[in-house]
């Protein structure tokens, strides 16, 4: 079976107390011009959803993927903000969902943080997706004959009720362009791995074993019974390498600028071993890519990118052609809507 090119991403973070937003923009444009698939916008100190919206307006083709905590945020606000980023990015938004340790964040929000943070996160994610579904395609009709703006039969209360949170809906924001922007779960332990396997479109991990497709032996049947996902449904993404089922696996790598050739060789090996994508954490992104990309192309891991369209500095005149969606880049099938009855 032919192997897909290695997905390549950059993690952008500015952890200084006075972040340099111009530098963040410059790094995102370096990543876009180099043809990377997405940038991950780490949480804090700046709000990652707001940074994502700004970068979405300043770029034209790259995936824009903010990180938020499921533990300390409201699914309603996260759902509308991500839908908005997807609108600005015209279908290039994604989402890295993190789970905090309850003891680390208790007292930072005005609700009671539950001890079962993975369970809370699963409900958070489900509520966000339900809100994205709450508007069907074509709900806005602008029918001057009947004076109706909305087809209200196509907008739904979600009435989500979990053990930790409840959301009535519908969303205040129409369905985002991708339907469901891809959800990447950051895996830090067994519980977040199970969350990723049960609900994620992709996972991020620093563990090469997991990134290569390991971890499948851990009570697979039990895990699926517990999450309600039919094991036969856990199909590989369309066009995926097919070496394993489940979410797209992305390896997070700290870049050592002194050994970029070694990094290229390692990434080629990881790709051969089943890793589908890599998220680079590099201080000097431009310098890293200048060495890494030709080496990866030479090794047949990932071709060099063609130049894409330039960003629209006014926001008023986007190119007619829509950019590739992030779901397409990740090889994910089109999202379905739980409220749509198949014709």
């Amino acid at each position, binding site marked *: 079976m032919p192997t897909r090119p290695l997905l390549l991403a950059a993690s952008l973070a500015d*952890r200084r*107390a*006075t*972040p340099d*937003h111009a530098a963040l923009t410059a790094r995102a444009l370096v990543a876009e011009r180099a043809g990377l698939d997405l940038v991950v916008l780490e949480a*804090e*100190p*700046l*709000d990652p*959803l*707001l*940074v*994502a*919206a*700004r970068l979405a*307006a*300043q770029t034209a083709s790259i995936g824009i993927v903010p990180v938020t905590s499921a533990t*300390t*945020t*409201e699914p*309603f*606000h996260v759902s*509308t*903000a991500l*839908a*908005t*980023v997807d*609108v*600005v990015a015209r279908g290039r938004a994604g989402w890295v969902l993190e789970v905090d340790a309850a003891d680390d964040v208790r*007292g*930072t*929000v*005005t*609700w009671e943080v539950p001890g079962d943070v993975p369970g809370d996160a699963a409900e958070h994610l489900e509520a966000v997706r339900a809100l994205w579904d709450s*508007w069907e395609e074509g*709900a*806005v009709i*602008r029918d*001057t004959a*009947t*004076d*109706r*703006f*909305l087809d*209200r039969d196509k*907008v739904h209360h979600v009435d989500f009720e979990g053990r930790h*949170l*409840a*959301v*009535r*809906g*519908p969303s*205040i*924001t*129409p369905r985002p362009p991708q339907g469901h922007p891809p959800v990447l779960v950051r895996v830090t332990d067994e519980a977040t791995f199970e969350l990723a396997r049960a609900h994620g479109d992709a996972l991020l991990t620093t563990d090469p074993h997991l990134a290569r497709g390991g971890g499948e032996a851990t009570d697979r049947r039990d895990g699926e019974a517990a999450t309600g996902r039919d094991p036969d449904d856990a199909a590989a993404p369309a066009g995926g390498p097919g070496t394993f089922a489940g979410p797209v696996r992305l390896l997070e790598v700290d870049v050592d600028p002194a050994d970029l050739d070694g990094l290229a060789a390692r990434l080629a090996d990881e790709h051969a071993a089943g890793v589908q994508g890599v998220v680079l954490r590099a201080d000097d992104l431009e310098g890293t890519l200048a060495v890494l990309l030709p080496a990866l192309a030479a090794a047949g891991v990932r071709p060099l990118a063609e130049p894409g369209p330039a960003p629209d500095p*006014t*926001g*008023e*005149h*986007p190119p007619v052609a829509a950019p590739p969606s992030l779901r397409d880049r990740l090889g994910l099938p089109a999202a379905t809507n739980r409220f749509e009855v198949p014709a």
Partner: protein
Amino acid sequence: MSTPRKQVRLAAHFPGVNNTTVWGDPAAGSHMDLASFAHLARTAERAMFDLFFLAEGLSLREHAGHLHDLDVVGRPDAMTILAALSAVTEHIGLAATLTTTYHEPLEVARQLATLDHLSDGRAAWNLVTSTDAVSGANFRRGAYLPYDGRYDRAQELLALADRLWAQGPGPFDTTGRQVTLRGEWDLDTPPQGRPVILQAGDSDAGREFAAAQADAVFTRAGTIPEGQAFVTDVKGRLARYGRRPEDLLILPGATYVLGDTDEDAREQAAHVRRQQVSGPTAIVFAEQLWNRDLSAYDPDGPLPDVDPVEGEITIAPGSIPARAFSGKRHETVEQLRALAAKDGLSLRDVMVETRARHSFVGSPQTVADEIDAQVQADACDGFILVPHLTPGGLDEFADRVVPLLQERGSLRTEREPGTLRERLGLPRWTPEQGAAGA
């Protein structure tokens, strides 16, 4: 020696999800795409406006047990779209409405500081409180906040945000009636020190809160004497907080229809008003007043011959107009009946007459005169203008009214340097000021 002429402050309100917005006009565009927001914000910026303003609603409007489907429905998250606009504008202030009830204190502090950093000092916050149960059902704590607790939450949330913005990175700890939090803050003081804060409540508690805390008040437009009375009341409260009259701007919301002549404008306004009040919308308006089902009535026929129903609001729970009629439904219906009888008006005609008035109607010269007269008479400091078309509804105002305001010296022709707060002539906020009023 002449004193410099008082400057008109202008803000542009992106058309909202009510019947002011004419979505059926052939010129109406997307109310969701970045291009629409960018066009209106950049038009306002080119026309020397101070602010671009977004409202907030955290649930869709419902009427008679259904989602309200006659007006624009759906909008982006306000802070998120403003962050995108920070990339395609350079000077204009970016104001979002956020309720203190259903946003978390740290989230509000972080998002406003972030927008202020991203925009190099252009963030503004229209602080509102809310307690409605329909919105509450979308959040983790539900409708947790009693009506009389809403300003406790607002004050404690703002006090914490002020402290974090002022202190910069480090630990924090606060204990209040509504807000008890602790943790670690990691951002330096934002460029403005404190984002510009607008307040929109008209109640006595709201006015006092504005006098103590706000930089601007978003209020209702009225006549010059009405405006002067409001200004006297609100600005009269400033001294007890150690503030000067010029430290608080009064900005009424206003609509407008322009024409080549005053007569032409009146004709266009009549057309716009009928677009704003369709037959079905007229029935909804009547149901808000009568507080009962009137769907069997013909909007082009006479007013319903049944009595209104006082007491619990059943047909439009959560509707602000429906609540505003409480206690005076019979009296109001009698007034409308008299109006209909006098002029031979249908139900829809009556609603057009009473529910779709525009603040300014006239030629560019007339509208510029009226705006300037209000400001020079200290009935207000400027206006938050609400166009009825998305996204081109401000174009004509920018092209035809703004130059006339500039000609008479009431609107700048060049950008002053500095942050939004500095350009508005507002003092840099110190936490001690907030404490003095508490």
